[in-house]
């Protein structure tokens, strides 16, 4: 604990740096993935190609990607932008799949009803498909939030500062408290951002309350029918 009190400034500063690395990556990967996921949902032939590409990307070990990116992008190895790009790519690899599933989860009947009501293709996307796909998209986003926060620490071994610097520094100097602080800070940060996503989702999508939107299962139907009232 004494280590934490005397180094509170450092931890606070690294937390901000960590946020500056991971939040842009999370937002970028979400904004890029939703259209790609929609393409995979809309055009059957593109689905297999896009999803396999994402699976391949996801299979690439993070440290290897951090090293392999700079020669492609022309950035320096220790540039934070390099890390943000790598984290964005991992985020995309996760969300595209969920986004395709999210758009698949919209009932075809609903889509047809929207068309029958006179929605244009774009209007239908923004007004019907996107809101209904929202809850599943949110679940994908939450996975990416947690994994990105955790993955960003890996950058510390190649010299990109983040909360992960507490791990490398603590290891080299043999300070156990520093590593534990880093672990706790990273997990807390992930929990806070996850809470922000859940709360944001609840505000933006009040209809997605899981307890109300659950479709009655066969057993429920039976119990309703059996009710003498």
């Amino acid at each position, binding site marked *: 604990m004494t280590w934490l009190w005397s180094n509170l400034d450092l931890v606070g500063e690294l937390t901000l740096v960590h946020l500056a690395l991971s939040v842009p990556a999370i937002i970028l990967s979400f904004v890029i993935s939703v259209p790609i996921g929609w393409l995979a949902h809309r055009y059957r032939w593109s689905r297999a190609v896009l999803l396999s590409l994402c699976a391949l990307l996801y299979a690439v*070990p993070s440290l290897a990607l951090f090293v392999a990116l700079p020669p492609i992008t022309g950035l320096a190895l220790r540039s934070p932008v390099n890390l943000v790009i790598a984290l964005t790519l991992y985020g995309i690899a996760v969300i595209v799949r969920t986004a395709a599933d999210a758009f698949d989860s919209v009932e075809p009947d609903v889509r047809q009803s929207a068309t029958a009501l006179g929605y244009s293709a774009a209007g239908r996307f923004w007004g019907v498909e996107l809101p209904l796909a929202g809850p599943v998209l949110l679940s994908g986003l939450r996975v990416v939030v947690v994994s990105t926060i955790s993955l960003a620490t890996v950058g510390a071994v190649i010299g990109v500062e983040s909360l992960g610097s507490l791990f490398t520094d603590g290891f080299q100097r*043999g300070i156990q408290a520093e590593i534990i602080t880093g672990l706790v800070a990273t997990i807390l940060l992930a929990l806070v951002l996850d809470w922000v996503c859940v709360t944001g989702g609840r505000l933006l999508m009040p209809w997605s309350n899981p307890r109300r939107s659950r479709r009655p299962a066969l057993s429920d139907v039976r119990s309703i029918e059996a009710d003498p009232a």
Partner: protein
Amino acid sequence: MNLFLDAIAWILDPANWSGPGSIPQRLWEHVWITAVVLFIASAIALPTGAAIGHTGRGREPAVRVSGGLRALPTLGLLTLFGIWIGIGLAAPIIALVILAIPPLLAGAYAGFESVDRRTIDAARAVGMRESQIVGKVELPLGMPIVVGGIRSATLQIIATATLAAYIADDGLGRFIFAGLKTRDYAEMLGGSILVILLALVVDGILALTQRRVVPVGVRAARDTELRSRPTRSRAVVGQPIHEGNPE
């Protein structure tokens, strides 16, 4: 692009293919660590997950544990065990096992849970013993999901074993850290390319396995499902059938 040519030249350099710390030795270490960790983690997580999926008991804590462990930064765990246990293979192996458990556990319970309850009831009704239900019904039907868990756990282990070279003198990650120290980008990039190739090859093999373990009967059922479904099917499904007059 020149850097990539340098890296490929580094990989092909015969000097890097023999002696201590050569490419084959590091590759072997990487594969060996991955196999050992996968074996230990599977021995813990797969039976536990199967028991949870079969009985449905302890599901909530299992979901929370596998979800919570995912937020754990790999580097933090590695360095913590590194200073606790010291230099050597024990620290990375323990850390890797802990990290490999969540995907294995999730795959096992999700796989066993995915089996239709009616299928299990039918198996029980034709007189199968509980052990037969687990071995002959739940395991084969849930196998693709279980293998999916093994697949993501393996990828996780290969990736983290690269990082483990930071605290131990093992695996392909060694080339990355050695290159980082001596500012030899060709060695770093060469090591990275080898790791990426290893991960993609292993992932490909497991993806094929995942497809192969789908039981023949399930595959046949899936093919027939592809035919056009009747419209308004939803209005029919889910209606309770009234037999006789209960009131």
